[in-house]
């Protein structure tokens, strides 16, 4: 799916390097590392906002820099750490925006679009929120809506940048569980960045750790490392 081969991540100077990693569909990865280790830059390199300093990020056989905007939007969706809601924007209208890369120039939704939206609403149990305005939701509900919008975008890759940062404990767990379920059931490659070590360990998912001494991104299988070991290499 995503092939990362001899890549240097950074803006002006190299933050970390990747020797050879392959991220697969149907898997969920937690990206962890100390603050300033380059997590966000890495995510932005995958979404194509920045290019890596060296090497190419290859998705499905072609370099991300070769994707046009629409193709990229059909391949990767993105959920930020907060969605504050927009005045007068209803949840169902917000969700419909997930179809943007798939609709024609006038943004008209067809039967397929409606089906995807409704299926996702059912999957995430959002029926009761549909008619609410995004400003009226709780933080947890809004993050859920943002995830739903990403699913509706129907991309193979979903990237979440610290999606649990502003949530309470129960909601954090809920989000991680949900994303895990989505990665397997909908066969997506999910990458979640987080600085919440315990949460990632509890969720039993693969970890992408920025090794603080080697300055390398390492893939650690779920349950392969203990918390102490993780702290020693990542923080």
């Amino acid at each position: 799916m995503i092939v990362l081969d001899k890549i240097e991540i950074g803006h002006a100077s190299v933050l970390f390097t990747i020797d050879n990693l392959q991220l697969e569909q149907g898997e969920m990865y937690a990206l962890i590392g100390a603050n300033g280790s380059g997590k966000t830059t890495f995510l932005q390199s995958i979404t194509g906002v920045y290019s890596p300093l060296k090497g190419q990020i290859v998705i499905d056989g072609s370099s991300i820099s070769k994707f046009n905007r629409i193709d990229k939007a059909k391949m990767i969706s993105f959920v930020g750490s907060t969605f504050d809601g927009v005045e007068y924007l209803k949840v169902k209208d917000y969700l419909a925006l997930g179809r943007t890369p798939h609709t024609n120039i006038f943004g008209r939704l067809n039967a397929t679009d409606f089906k995807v939206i409704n299926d996702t609403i059912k999957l995430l149990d959002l029926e009761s929120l549909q008619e609410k305005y995004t400003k009226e939701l709780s933080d947890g509900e809004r993050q859920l809506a943002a995830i739903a919008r990403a699913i509706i975008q129907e991309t193979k890759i979903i990237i979440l940048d610290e999606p649990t940062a502003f949530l309470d404990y129960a909601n954090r767990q809920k989000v991680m569980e949900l994303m895990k379920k989505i990665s397997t059931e909908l066969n997506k490659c999910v990458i979640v960045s987080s600085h919440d070590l315990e949460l990632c360990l509890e969720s039993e998912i693969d970890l992408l750790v920025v090794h603080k001494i080697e300055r390398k991104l390492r893939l650690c299988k779920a349950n392969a490392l203990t918390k102490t070991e993780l702290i020693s290499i990542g923080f």
Partner: protein
Amino acid sequence: MGSKTNNKLVIVILVTLLPIIAFIHLSSGTISIGFSDFYSALTNFDAQSTNQLIIKEFRFPRLIMGIIAGGGLSIAGLLMQTLFNNPLAGPNILGINSGASLFVAFSLMSGVPFFSSDFGTIISALLGAFAFGLLILAFSMVVKSNVSLLLIGIMLGSFTGAFVSILQAVSNPEDLKMFIMWAMGSLQQVEFSQLPIIFIFFLIGLISCLFVVKSLNTLVLGENQALMLGIKVKYIRIFLIAITAILTGLITAFCGPIAFVGLAVPNIVKLLFKTQSHRTLLIGSLLVGSIFLLICDIFVQLVESTIHIPINAITSIIGAPFVIIIVLKRLV
């Protein structure tokens, strides 16, 4: 689904209201004109009848210009508010119409015949509005605060205002027509023969809007999210400025400044429809904007025989307190 039918109902009400207001607008004026004259002006126009001539040469162009100016400025305001993610944005406050005034002033004074033709005036107004729109866009990349951007817009306005008055001082002092238009705004300076060209440009602006509805809807989520949804934000921004320039430039060239319509109406429309669907908001702005400006102009005509109040004064009297309310609402 309830609210969607509600919104349809509101649109139906507005669509019925517009012709009623339009008829009241047509029939108000210094001379009272009977219904039969309106009927025959439509069916069997007779230039010998002074009443029918008044309908054709004054009332009708003024009505059409009211609809175009009200609707056009409101749409331009909506575009700017979404583009800059700022409820207080509008073509007037961002200084876009002053760009149009400045270029029109320059072109009329250049003495080149092309520039004093209707087409030339429109073109220079469009260029001026577009240039100032791009300038504001460039500033928006540097200043991140919404308020700072508005301040820059206001400064652009004062700067060109000063420049235009200097141009006036050195130009033909008897050309008061231009002065009145630049200073106070007027729906009455348009002639019947100019309507087709005005209408064509207005239509170009309206049709262009159809192609940005989708992008506008995603832009409310912020630029980054719009990018991730596959919107070419860079081009869309310039395209939005271009549409705003067409609408604002056209209206400024023929009516002069009409303040606050572009700012107030989109906010009223959002309150009315409670949606971010820009298809609805655009239709709503077109309708509410036209109705709003026609009502203002009916008031101007009602008192016309005793005092002449420029339309800009009326829209400002209603619009300025409205802005204060929005600001207070956001602060509290």
